[in-house]
C-alpha cells in the first residue's frame, strides 16, 4: 500500500466508524455512550480527510480551494484504483 492508499484507508476507516455510529444513533437517539463515540469518530474522520485533501486533492467539489485550479475532476476516480 502506498502513502496515498494509506491516507485513503484512514479516511475510509474513520468514516465507516462515523456512519455506523450514525445509524445506531438513528435507532437509539438517547444513548449517551453512542453519542460520545460518534463525536470522537467524527473528529477522527474530519482530521483524516483534512490530511488526505492537503496532499492529494479534494474529496468533494466543495473542498476545492482554488490553489490547483478545478482539481475536482482529476484522476483517479474511486473505481479506477485497481489491484
Amino acid at each position, binding site marked *: 500500500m502506498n502513502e496515498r492508499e494509506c491516507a485513503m484507508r484512514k479516511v475510509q476507516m474513520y468514516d465507516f466508524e462515523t456512519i455506523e455510529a450514525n445509524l445506531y444513533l438513528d435507532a437509539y437517539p438517547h444513548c449517551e455512550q453512542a453519542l460520545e463515540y460518534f463525536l470522537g469518530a467524527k473528529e477522527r474522520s474530519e482530521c483524516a480527510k483534512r490530511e488526505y485533501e492537503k496532499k492529494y486533492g479534494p474529496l468533494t*467539489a466543495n473542498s476545492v480551494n482554488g490553489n490547483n485550479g478545478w482539481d*475536482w*475532476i*482529476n*484522476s483517479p*476516480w474511486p473505481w479506477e484504483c485497481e489491484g
Partner: protein
Amino acid sequence: MWIYEKKLEYPVKIKNPNAKLAGVIISQLGGPDGELGASMRYLNQRYSVPYNEIVGIYTDIGTEELAHMEIVAAILHQLTRNLSIEEIKKSGFDKYFVDHTTGIYPQAASGMPFSTSTIQVTGDLFADINENLAAEGAIAKEQPDITTPEKALFYAIFLTFRVLAQNRRLRPHKNNKSQKYDRTSCFQWKINKIV
C-alpha cells in the same frame, strides 16, 4: 460515496393541494424521462467515459438528479395533503390511491412502475450522450403552466442540456488519430487499457 444534506435544493411551498396535478407530476419522479431515470443514467454511464471532464459532469449531474427527485417528491407530498374521499374520486387519483394511498411511489403518470427499461448504458461515449440529450430534451419541451419549483427544475435541466450539447462538440477522441469519431473507439480504448 454519498452524503445526505437535510435541505431541498430549491424550496417547495404549495398552497393548494391538487390530486389531479399530482397524478401527472408523478411522471417527473418515476416516468420514462423522470428524475430517478436521469440519475441512474448518469451515475451508471460514467464508468465507461474516458474523459475526466465528462466523468465529473456525470457524477455531479447524477447526484443533482437525486436532489431533484427529492424536490418532485416534496411537490407530490404537498399536493396530496388533506384530501377528502370525494376529492380523491373526483380527481382520478383513486387509481393511485388504492395501491399507494398518499405515499410517494416512483411510477409514470400512466401507472407503469419505474423501470430501467426506459434508460440505456451502451458503454459508448457518444451513444450515451445522445441518450441523455433525448431524455433531457423530452423534459425541456414545452410544459403546461405549473409550480415555481418545477420551473426552477426545468431551468436546471436546460442548463444540463446545454452542457451536454457542448460536450458533443468536444475534441476528437484521445486515441483516434484520424480525427473522426469512431463508434467503437471508447470501448476499444478501454480494451486497450486492459490488454
